[in-house]
């Protein structure tokens, strides 16, 4: 992947497929590290599936027997000296607290660190593709904080207006874009 934000999009799509109702994407930066956490309340994975998930030959897709999403992320993290960890609670064993949490740690100053890229586009793409799911997005460091929570938007918009409406997607893009623009001005 050319940008880390594309990995974020790809990984969050797994949560969509797991029928999550809330997907939380947290990006946390320090001087040296970049940590990405994607957390969902989807169906979760059994221990057996979880063990195999790092393997490219483990996939949920029906069209081919190869899934590259997590292996690609793992490679991107490990080539900076970082790592990927996943914990999951399958719905059969945890009917009330099921879900998956994936954390990827990157070392930013490593020459092989992939830049984040257009993360705003990733957030709008997720909302556009799954307007019925709630997304919580948080990008923080000790210097800044960029946030979006679709539950807040839904409260204002009500039931009738889908979050995937172009007007809303455009508003989200501008809302996040302005938060990032203000950072670089300060």
């Amino acid at each position, binding site marked *: *992947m050319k940008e880390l934000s*594309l990995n974020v*999009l*790809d990984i969050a*799509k797994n949560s969509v*497929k797991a029928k999550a109702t809330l997907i939380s994407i947290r990006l946390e930066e320090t001087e040296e590290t970049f940590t990405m956490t994607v957390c969902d309340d989807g169906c979760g994975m059994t221990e057996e599936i979880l063990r195999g998930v790092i393997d490219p030959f483990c996939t949920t*897709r029906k*069209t*081919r027997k190869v*899934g*590259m*999403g997590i292996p*690609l992320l793992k490679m991107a993290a490990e080539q900076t000296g970082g790592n990927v960890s996943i914990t999951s609670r399958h719905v059969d064993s945890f009917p009330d607290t099921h879900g998956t949490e994936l954390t990827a740690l990157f070392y930013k100053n490593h020459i092989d660190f992939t830049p984040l890229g*257009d993360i705003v*586009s*990733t957030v*709008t*793409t997720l909302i*556009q*593709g799954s307007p019925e799911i709630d997304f919580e997005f948080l990008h923080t460091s000790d210097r800044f904080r960029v946030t979006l929570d679709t539950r*807040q*938007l839904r409260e*204002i*918009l*009500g039931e*009738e*207006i889908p979050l995937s*409406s*172009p*007007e*809303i*997607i*455009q*508003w989200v893009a*501008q*809302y996040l874009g*302005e938060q990032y623009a203000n950072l670089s001005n300060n």
Partner: protein
Amino acid sequence: MKSLAELAAIRDKMKDKIVLREGGEVTRIVVGMATCGIAAGARPVLNAFVEGVDREGLNAKVVVSQTGCIGLCQYEPIVEVSEPGKEKVTYVKMTVEKAEKVLKQHIQGGKIVEEYTITAAQK
């Protein structure tokens, strides 16, 4: 500065428009957004369609949506266009520029951009 309060204004403006799309058949533009599509550049292609449809005022009759892997990863980014009563057209190896042309020539003009289709790619 964009604020949440501004959303309320957008909501009020949109309420009348929503009814328009109900009933009446729509054209569907479906972009493949699995790992293969994303890695090949599907995200900007999707955005080009979403923004283009809005810009050209086609929201009432065109819906842009996302799908998973179609099984033709070597041809990603793939975009399928389904118009009511017509056969589905599959565009392959799409870019933002190609998306603009498909929007203009096919979606608005009704003429398939033959050179971008999978049939042309497989020749």
